[in-house]
């Protein structure tokens, strides 16, 4: 299998950049290329990057078909209120999924597709399972969940038509020092709202663990979904207290006002984050080790502790003092 061509869509994001850095060290990877609207956030040694906005379908198709990848890793999804508002995120995600996965279907060398999804696809409707596993029927109850379900449907359709395995990596909310995350942003506010009657548990995943899972998925080429979540969980109140933030207990109707105020203050709470605060978000992670050979090691509590420990501004000293 050595000398394989791997293409990453969404290489410019934190997750895509980390994944590219990991894939560069994989012995089976021959050529590595990436597409995104923004340049990568890490220094990469061997990867080729193409800066193309998601709306430019023709250029994306041309670039991918010219590269003719053996493995496509699609991580280009925009979480609502992470880097773009819900409406824009929906359009960008849809454009990227259609053009990238559609172009991949035209590549003769294609052997496997790995797609980023999320545990938001299971939804948190009344009576839904506490820890849904990969066999649980999809029932998204948030806009982000429906966006991810759309990506999965497109990927499955490509898989059926072309006959290649598609690994659907369903991530818990990804947190990391440079990951734009509405959940992380809200939890780092000085005053954080929480549902006093429910205070549900949720889990997350560290960005590095998520990148390792993607790297393993592109190597293992499993056909089907796999949940990638950090071990353990934490309740919203405990997450707030661990960061020394002031918990703001809410019961119900005042959530609308608090969400509006949070939006004005620069930390919008999209519906999938609000759902997490009300209903929690857990998933069964027992299949990851069997399917991928790796599983997240950093626990949910450690990820939250890390979230509160990250510096707001990282000061890098000058290489040489000149004045």
């Amino acid at each position, binding site marked *: 299998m050595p000398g394989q061509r791997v293409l990453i869509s969404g290489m410019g994001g934190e997750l895509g950049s980390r994944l590219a850095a990991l894939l560069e060290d994989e012995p089976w990877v021959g050529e590595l290329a990436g597409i995104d609207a923004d340049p990568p956030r890490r220094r*990469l040694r061997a990867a*080729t990057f*193409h800066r193309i906005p998601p709306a430019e379908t023709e250029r994306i198709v041309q670039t991918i078909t010219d590269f003719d990848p053996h493995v496509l890793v699609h991580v280009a999804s925009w979480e609502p209120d992470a880097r773009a508002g819900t409406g824009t995120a929906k359009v960008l995600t849809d454009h990227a999924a259609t053009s990238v996965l559609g172009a991949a279907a035209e590549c003769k060398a294609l052997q496997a597709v790995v797609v980023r999804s999320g545990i938001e696809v299971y939804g948190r409707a009344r009576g839904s399972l506490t*820890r*849904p596993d990969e066999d649980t029927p999809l029932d998204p109850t948030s806009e982000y969940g429906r966006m991810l379900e759309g990506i999965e449907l497109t990927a499955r359709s490509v898989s059926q038509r072309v006959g290649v395995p598609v690994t659907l990596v369903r991530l818990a909310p990804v947190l990391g020092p440079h990951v734009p995350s509405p959940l992380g942003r809200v939890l780092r506010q000085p005053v954080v709202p929480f549902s006093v009657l429910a205070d549900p548990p949720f889990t997350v995943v560290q960005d590095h663990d998520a990148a390792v899972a993607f790297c393993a998925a592109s190597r293992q080429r499993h056909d089907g979904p796999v949940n990638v979540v950090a071990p353990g*969980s934490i309740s919203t109140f405990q997450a707030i207290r661990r960061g*020394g933030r002031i918990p703001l207990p809410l019961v119900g109707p005042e959530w609308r006002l608090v969400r509006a105020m949070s939006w004005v203050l620069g930390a919008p709470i999209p519906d999938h984050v609000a759902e997490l605060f009300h209903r929690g978000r857990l998933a069964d992670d027992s299949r990851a080790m069997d399917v991928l050979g790796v599983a997240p090691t950093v626990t949910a509590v450690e990820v939250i502790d890390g979230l*509160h420990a990250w510096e707001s501004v990282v000061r890098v*000293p000058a290489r040489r003092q000149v004045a």
Partner: protein
Amino acid sequence: MTALILPFARRSEPGEPKHPADVEEDPTVERTRPDPPASGVHVDGWGRDSIFVERITTLANMRWHVTLGGVDRLPSRAGALIVVNVRTYSLAPVFTALALCEATGRPVRFVGRPDTAPAGALLRRLGGLLDHPEEVRNALRAKELVVIGTGRELHPQRVGRIDHRLIGAAVQERVRVHPAAATSSPFSRHARVEIGTEINAGRSRRGPLAELELADAARKRIRSLLEEMGGWHSGPLFDWLSMSGMGGD
């Protein structure tokens, strides 16, 4: 077409100390973390809060003094489904789970929490699971001890129906099913839980008959355990009064 060839060259000169921007972030490096507050306990992957369970167990011990028998019949590490009889308003699955947790040192789940706040949220922190076969199956796959209740009965010696779909979860995951007989009284602290040996339906079935037969076998075994434990059949006059709290009930 815009094409950038990486890397973005930024390297320290040989011999000079590494520039901070040249050092790859090592995820294994220990970061300074804030000291956890006293109440900053965490919950497990199912939402069960071990500190909360300890506190509730202390309170529960004031209400129930549970005598537990047959704990050594349960697996020490593997998962198992424990079926316990339920009298109306007795909360038998809850006190059984708490008592088993104390005795085994393992987290024990019980089935039957609602999915509405605040009762559902509180019971989830105690280890409650939804009354859903897939929920039970996931827990058994994760090698958990799960307590399910039979249908509610007012009479202490009767055993209600057992949801065979929940038993089916154990059949599919190939874990042991143990009967448990619980007796308690609303007027007394004394409660008793006796765990029986693993239930074997007798025949090996390939289809859903296995769970039906296992559920029937579990019901019979619980009834026989209740008879072995005594109660109104063997006691003096006051034992006839099932709610008196003076008998084995």
